[in-house]
């Protein structure tokens, strides 16, 4: 409402606007000041204030519940059968495991790390090969010294020396082959160490592009491992023979007779 000058003619309208709450704070203040200055209008103000209806808060609508409607509840995920949930959990677990495995084995992100990893792999391989070689030598050399007299004593005849030497020669060939591979591997390590870091990064990136074929950094080829594989096959045969002997011994049964009764120990065939 626009503020205006109060007088005898408009005081009633201003009081009515005040009763209806249509005056702003300034206008209200003006009205109060005017009435204080002209107390003859105070009775009019009080009379109009009596026309305001009192609150009837005690009157409440009794059937409110009848008017309420069922609200739609937001369900983020629809309930599914048990097997579907189990399948979903299995898939999630598989994805998680795969992700961890990939992240753990993926060294292609950082080319420098990949090169360093290759170096450490080559070094580990060389160390392992050296250990294997020393083990093989340690086993074979004493055998040559001990086996000959033992065989002579047990069999009571002179062993054919030439056939034994052939076996030893073949074994030595295998060892020589492994030693050669070690030297190649060592050369590979020194070669990698000699390459500057920048070039290593370039090589690693190039290898990353060529991914799909056999790793280039391996010091030996698969066909060259044939002799070693034969040794492994022989060891496997020996193991199987020992297992068979063990099984035969277990299958034999001993029968004891005590006070006319027979007691069997072991498996009766």
């Amino acid at each position: 409402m626009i503020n205006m000058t109060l007088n005898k003619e408009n005081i009633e309208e201003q009081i009515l606007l005040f009763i209806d709450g249509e005056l702003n704070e300034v206008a209200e203040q003006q009205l109060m000041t005017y009435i204080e200055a002209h107390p003859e209008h105070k009775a009019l103000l009080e009379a109009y204030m009596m026309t305001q209806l009192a609150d009837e808060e005690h009157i409440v609508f009794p059937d409110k519940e009848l008017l309420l409607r069922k609200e739609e509840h937001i369900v983020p995920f629809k309930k599914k059968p048990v097997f579907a949930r189990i399948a979903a959990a299995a898939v999630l677990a598989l994805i998680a495991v795969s992700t961890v495995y990939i992240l753990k084995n993926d060294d292609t992100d950082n080319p420098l790390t990949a090169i360093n990893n290759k170096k450490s792999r080559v070094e580990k391989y060389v160390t392992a090969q050296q250990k294997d070689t020393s083990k093989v030598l340690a086993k074979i050399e004493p055998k040559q010294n001990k086996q000959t007299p033992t065989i002579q004593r047990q069999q009571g005849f002179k062993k054919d020396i030439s056939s034994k030497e052939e076996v030893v020669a073949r074994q030595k060939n295998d060892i020589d082959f492994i030693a050669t591979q070690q030297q190649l591997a060592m050369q590979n390590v020194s070669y990698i160490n000699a390459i500057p870091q920048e070039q290593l990064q370039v090589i690693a990136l190039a290898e990353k592009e060529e991914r799909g074929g056999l790793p280039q950094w391996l010091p030996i080829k698969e066909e060259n491992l044939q002799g070693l594989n034969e040794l492994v096959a022989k060891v496997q045969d020996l193991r199987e023979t020992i297992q068979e002997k063990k099984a035969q011994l277990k299958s034999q049964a001993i029968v004891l007779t005590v006070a006319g009764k027979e007691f069997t120990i072991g498996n009766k065939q």
Partner: protein
Amino acid sequence: MNTTEYNQCVRELSDSLYRFAWKSVGDGEMAKDMVQQAFVTLWESKDTVPFEKGKSYLFTITYRRCMDVHRQRGRTVSAENLHENYSYEQPKIHDLKKTLQTALNLLDEQSKNLVLLKDYEGYSYDEIAKVTDLNTTQVKVYLHRARKVLKNYLVSKEHVI
């Protein structure tokens, strides 16, 4: 509005709507029916009525229904008639609240409803104009006239408390 907002309207507005209807028609059961009908109408058209318009929508429906009831009853007491009658009507109880209710019931339906909307709901002239399909000036004039009638009734020699 959605169902949640509709229910909020029920919780927040049903009491005041009921009060308004009851004071307007003077019949609790009829007021209850009016409120239910107003909310049924709101529910049916809730998709087109925004939540912030819910209150004025409900009061407009109820106001129109009240006016229909008054028309059906065929009792329209003009302010002039009231002014003529109040001098010889003797209120049995000299109590401001009851005297005021008596005076209110002697107002014409439209003036009575305007006073109810103003005093119970605290609507502004503009808001009352929207609910009643009157313009703001009409609302102001009708309301001031109704206040004068009520004041004259209360301060008359017979009804002075």
